[in-house]
């Protein structure tokens, strides 16, 4: 008898929690995972445990794949959807797939030069030549020209790159491609490329570890990684000729360009005068017809997803800098709002309704 009462009580208790809570499931790029999970934590608190966002990092490729397989409510990627994927989704769901910028990825050149902890200046041409193996020594005249006050050692340069496929590599090589035609033709840009020189290391931590242990080496990692692990990073001369110290505001500034309506754009080697040149968006992928995504089972879930999305591009951005991410520029927020307004559930315009009731309008 006692046992029965206990059991019913337990059942009731769990039932109550059950009816109230809504789980939003997303997956994709590993780079924004800390930010999205932190957003999830705050948002959970904000909604009194009602909405739980479950984000798992499975890589950009995995995010796109699961998004088109409709096993997740939103995807996350560091490379925007290619036209053929956009088309196939449009065919399947009768609506667009939206790429909504949620945060910015920035990649820095990290180096290990004893005695030069800070302030090494490099530019796109020099970096391309270093990564092509044309500049072989640190005291090369082209590097010292950029750093007249620094005494550079005559160490040989060791290039360290990623051995695994990665969004970081995508942004880095897209920068090298946009400053050098030769690089664009010979190597190009992708999540993994055929490196002309250098040694491979696995993951951000692998590149960072190798650079830290080998004097004379240069590699690239995401900015937050270099900050959190206190590795020296280079300042870069951007296309306007300004020397930019990597910073969150410089990254945000880089995206302050004329964005296309679907935000599918690269802005490495940005034309923005104060912008850091090696930066790109990280996008959240959402179906226009939310009801056509099999992972979303009812309107309630769809609405909570949209609400979370609105929160993530506004108040949620406040979490960015303490975690090592740059805030979205206003231009991107504006584009996002326009896209959110088109979101529908069974042809009901829930996106614009929710925008109306939010402070964004």
């Amino acid at each position: 008898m006692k046992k029965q009462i206990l059991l019913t009580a337990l059942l009731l208790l769990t039932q109550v929690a059950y009816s109230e809570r809504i789980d939003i499931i997303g997956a994709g790029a590993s780079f924004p995972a800390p930010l999205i999970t932190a957003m999830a934590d705050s948002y959970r608190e904000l909604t009194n445990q009602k909405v739980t966002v479950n984000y798992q990092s499975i890589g950009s490729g995995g995010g796109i794949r699961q998004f088109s397989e409709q096993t997740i409510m939103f995807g996350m990627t560091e490379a925007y959807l290619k036209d053929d994927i956009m088309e196939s989704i449009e065919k399947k769901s009768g609506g667009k797939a939206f790429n909504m910028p949620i945060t910015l990825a920035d990649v820095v050149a990290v180096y290990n030069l004893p005695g030069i902890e800070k302030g090494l200046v490099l530019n796109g041409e020099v970096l391309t030549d270093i990564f092509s193996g044309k500049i072989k020594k640190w005291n090369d005249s082209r590097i010292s020209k950029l750093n007249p006050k620094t005494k550079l050692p005559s160490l040989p340069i060791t290039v360290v790159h990623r051995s695994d496929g990665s969004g970081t590599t995508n942004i880095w090589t897209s920068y090298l491609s946009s400053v050098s035609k030769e690089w664009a033709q010979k190597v190009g840009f992708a999540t993994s490329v055929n490196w002309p020189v250098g040694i491979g290391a696995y993951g951000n931590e692998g590149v960072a570890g190798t650079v830290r242990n080998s004097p004379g080496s240069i590699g690239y990692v995401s900015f937050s990684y270099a900050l959190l692990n206190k590795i020296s990073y280079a300042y870069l001369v951007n296309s306007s000729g300004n020397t930019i110290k990597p910073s969150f505001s410089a990254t945000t500034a880089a995206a302050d360009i004329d964005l296309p309506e679907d935000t599918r754009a690269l802005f490495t080697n940005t034309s923005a005068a104060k912008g850091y040149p090696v930066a790109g968006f990280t996008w959240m992928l959402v179906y226009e017809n939310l009801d056509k995504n099999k992972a979303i089972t009812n309107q309630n879930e769809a609405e909570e997803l949209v609400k979370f999305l609105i929160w993530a591009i506004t108040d949620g951005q406040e979490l960015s800098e303490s975690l090592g991410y740059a805030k979205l520029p206003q231009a991107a927020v504006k584009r996002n709002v326009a896209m959110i307004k088109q979101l529908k559930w069974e042809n009901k315009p829930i996106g614009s309704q929710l925008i109306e009731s939010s402070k964004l309008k």
Partner: protein
Amino acid sequence: MKTLRYRYILDRLFLSFLVINTIIVILPLLIMSSYVIVNGISALNLDLFTQELGSPTRAMQGQPTGLVHTMAGTLVVDIMALLFAIPVGLGTGILLSEYPDHILNPVLRIMNDTLNGMPAVLKGLLAFVLIVKPMGTFSGISGSAALAIVMLPIIARSTESALSIIPWSIREAGLALGLPRWRVVLSAIVPAARTGLITGFLIAFSRAAGEAAPLLFTSFGNNYLPKHWTGMFFGPVDTLPQRLYSLAISPYEHWHRMGWAAAIVLFGFVVISFVIAHLASGNNLQKKGNSR
């Protein structure tokens, strides 16, 4: 003629060869486990066993964060996988050992070995296509199914060898009593082979408990406990091997330490299941020592 001394020397040489080899086998395990314990012991605390993970900000700001959902999820997924795998694996093993002339056996044996050699990630993909896609969501059940496919060939093989060492006289005794063949298998052979069978289940279990790849696209992962206990079965679930990996590749120092702690927990989890199984099989070391 060889002298007695020469024979003794030869014997000792052989024995020391065996001892050295055994040490070489055990040494990596010792190094590995001590390394894990040294690195992870400082992160072992009460929060680890009572709190949900949440985000890295929790860890950075010193708020309580832990892996209770991961441990619960691992228990549910692994035990459910074992429950899926035992009946099927046991059946296959019995067919292979007790019905050696059965027409299916040659094919079955090849298929079983092939399945055993297949990369675990493919088994995850199979579960993804068969369960996740039709269900429309990641789930604990699909993770269990993937792990069950990892366990299956191991259980089938170990069952076959455990049953085949039971002397034929026991089977003959059963048949002589007039029992049908299936009765003999269930009431005489299987109980007699109990220790061997449980050891087989265990090897399969601990092998599967360390797999992360088949769980990526099935049980998926979760930073929180599911909303309802049924969520352990029908929703995304966190598991130790997978969480360990994602903690290890994160840029956060605190999460790295938590990853080591997760490794200790996983390690302890496997050791405890070995101990339980030894007790359950009623054949602990002492008894073995006495009977010799």
